[in-house]
C-alpha cells in the first residue's frame, strides 16, 4: 500500500495577521503544518500501523516549508518530497506541479487536508485527483479500508454521507477524522535519517501553460472592526418599530 499525503506550511493559527503594502507580513511569524493536513498525515500513519504502508509526504512551497515535511516524517511518514517554489502560484498551477513531481509513482491512496487555513481555497487536492484521473472524496471524517475498496464517511454540514469508493482515490481530511499525535522524540530523531527529495520547477516537465497563473490576488485587507451593538429600549411594539427603521435606514438590509 502506497500513500501520498499532500501537505502545506501555513501561518500558526495563533498568529496575528499584519498587512503591509497589501501583503501579509511574514515577519516574526511561526509557521506550522496546516492543521487539516495534520489529520491527513495522522490517518496515513494509522493505516501504516494497522496494516502496513509506505507514506510519502509532498509539499510545494518556499524553502522554509521543509519543516512541515520534518514534522510529518517525525509523526511516521517515510519519505519527503519538496518542490521549491518561492513565488506565488495558484491552485491550478500547483496541481500541475504536484502531478509532475509524482510522475511515474503509483499511489493507492492520496490524502490531503480539507483546506489550507491561510488561503482557505480547498482546491489543490481535488484538482490533483482530477489531474490523476482518480475519484475524490472531500471532507472525510472516517476512513475504513476493505481490500481494494474503502468505506468513507464525509461531513455534509451537520450530517454524514457514507460512500464506498474503489482504490486508488483521493480524500481530504476534515476535523474529527482523528486526533493527530505529537511527534515522539525517537520519531524526531529517526526523521533526520529519512530520505528527502528536492525538486525545483526546472527539474519537472512543465509547460509554460501549466505554470501560467489563472487567478491573481488583487487586494488583501483585514475585516472591519466590529462596531459596538445597539440595545433598543421601550415597549416591545416601539422596539420592533425602531428595529425595522434601523434595518432600513442604517443597515440598509430591508
Amino acid at each position, binding site marked *: 500500500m502506497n500513500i501520498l499525503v499532500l501537505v502545506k506550511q501555513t501561518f500558526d493559527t495563533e498568529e496575528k495577521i499584519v498587512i503591509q503594502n497589501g501583503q501579509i507580513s511574514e515577519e516574526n511569524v511561526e509557521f506550522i503544518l496546516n492543521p487539516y493536513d495534520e489529520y491527513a498525515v495522522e490517518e496515513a500513519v494509522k493505516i501504516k500501523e494497522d496494516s502496513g504502508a509506505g507514506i510519502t509526504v509532498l509539499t510545494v512551497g518556499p524553502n522554509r516549508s521543509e*519543516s512541515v515535511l*520534518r*514534522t510529518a516524517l*517525525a509523526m511516521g511518514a517515510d519519505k519527503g518530497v519538496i518542490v521549491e517554489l518561492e513565488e506565488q502560484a495558484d491552485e491550478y498551477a500547483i496541481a500541475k506541479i504536484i502531478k509532475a513531481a509524482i510522475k511515474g509513482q503509483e499511489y493507492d491512496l492520496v490524502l490531503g487536508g480539507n483546506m489550507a487555513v491561510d488561503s482557505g481555497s480547498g482546491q489543490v487536492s481535488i484538482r490533483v485527483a482530477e489531474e490523476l484521473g482518480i475519484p475524490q472524496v472531500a471532507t472525510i471524517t472516517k476512513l475504513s479500508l476493505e481490500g481494494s475498496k474503502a468505506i468513507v464517511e464525509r461531513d455534509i454540514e451537520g450530517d454524514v454521507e457514507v460512500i464506498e469508493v474503489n482504490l486508488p482515490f483521493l480524500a481530504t481530511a476534515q476535523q474529527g477524522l482523528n486526533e493527530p*499525535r*505529537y*511527534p*515522539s*522524540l*525517537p*520519531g*524526531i*530523531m529517526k526523521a*533526520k535519517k529519512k530520505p528527502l527529495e528536492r525538486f525545483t520547477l526546472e527539474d519537472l516537465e512543465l509547460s509554460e501553460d501549466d505554470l501560467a497563473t489563472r487567478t491573481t490576488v488583487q487586494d488583501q485587507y483585514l475585516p472591519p472592526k466590529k462596531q459596538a451593538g445597539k440595545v433598543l429600549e421601550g415597549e416591545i411594539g416601539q422596539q420592533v418599530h425602531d428595529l425595522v427603521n434601523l434595518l432600513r435606514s442604517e443597515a440598509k438590509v430591508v
Partner: protein
Amino acid sequence: MNFQLSEDIKFLKQSIRDFVDSEVDPLAMEIEEKDEIPEKIMKMSKEIGLFGLSIPEEYGGTGIGMVGKCAIYEELGRTHNGYTTVIGAHTGIGSVGIVEMGNEEQKRKYLPAMARGEMIGAFALTEPSAGSHATNLKTTAVRKGDKYILNGSKHYITNAPIADVFTVMAVTDPSKGAKGITSFIVEKDFPGFTVGKNEKKMGLHGSHSAEIFFEDCEVPVENVLGREGQGYVNALKILANGRAGLAARNLGSCDKLLEMSIQHANTRIQFGKPIFEQQIIQHYLADMAVDIEALRSMTYRVAWMVDQEMKVIKEAAMVKLLGSEVYNRVADKAVQIHGGIGYIAEYPVERFYRDARITKIYEGTSEIQKNIIASQLKREYL
C-alpha cells in the same frame, strides 16, 4: 565557537513546547489542587518518549546528548514543576545509574520498559542520618548465598509511590566508610521492601516523595549495580550527571516567570500608567533577564562539556548552584512585580515561588555545591 542550538535540537525543543503549551500547562492548576498528575498527561508524555530521555536508542530510548536533553528539560521547566519532577527524577537520577553503571543483562531487563514509562525509576540515597553527609548511611546489605539482605530505611525518595525500580545505596562494609557502600537495583516487589506514606510538601505537588523500608529485603546478587564498594562513587556520578538537567529545568521556569512578569508589568496600570514605566520595575526585569542569560549560557556550556566527555565536577556543581539561586531570585522578583496577585494561589506565580525553594536543597544543597566547588578549586590551584 558557536552558541546556536542545532536545527535538530531547535525542532525538538519546539515540538516539546507545543506539547507543553497545549496539553500540560492548561492542567497546571488541576495538578496543583489535586496533588496528582492526570493519567492522560502521563500517558501522552510516555507516548512522545519523554520517559526515555536518558536511555540509549538501542534500549528503546531517545539516545540524545546532554545539550538536547537540556533543551527538552528547559521546555518542561516552563510548566508545572511537579510534573517536571516526576519525569526529571525518572529520567535523571532514576534511570542514569542503570544506563551508566548497569551491565548488559541489567540494561536489557530494565531499560526498555523504563524508556516506555511502563517502569518508573527512583533514586534512594538520603536517610535520616545521611542528608548532606551522604556517606553516613545506616542501611546495611549483608551477603547470604546468592542474595544480599538489606535492612534500614530511606526518606524523601521522589517517585517512591509510583516507582518500580530503585537505585539504592547501602553499606556492605562498615569498616571502609565511603568505600564500603554498594548500589543495588531494587524492585518494588522484592520481599521485605515497603513504601511509606507520601510526605506533605511546600511545593512540587503531583510529585510524591516518601519513606522506603527494607526489612530483611532480599536482593539477588545479579542486582548489584557496578562493583561492590563502588556505590558512593556511583551515587556521585549519577548526581553530577543530573546537575545540568536540573539547571535547565530551572532555566525554563525562570524564562516563563520573566515572560509573565513583563506581560503583567505592561498591562498593570497604577498611577495612570503601566508599572513597566517605573524605573524600579524595569531594573527588576533587567536583573532577571541578566541572571537568566547567564544561567542559559552556563547550562548549555556545561551540557556541551558533558557531550564532549570532559570532566565537569566543578562546573556541574556551579551550574546546579547558579540554577537554583537564580530561580529563587527570579521567582521572588516575579512575585514582587505581580504585587498582591503574586501571592494568590489562583495565579501560577505563587506556585513557581514555592516550587523554586526545593531546588536549593535537593540533589545536594547550595552549601554542599559550594563545598564541592571549593574542593575542586583547591585541587586546581594549590
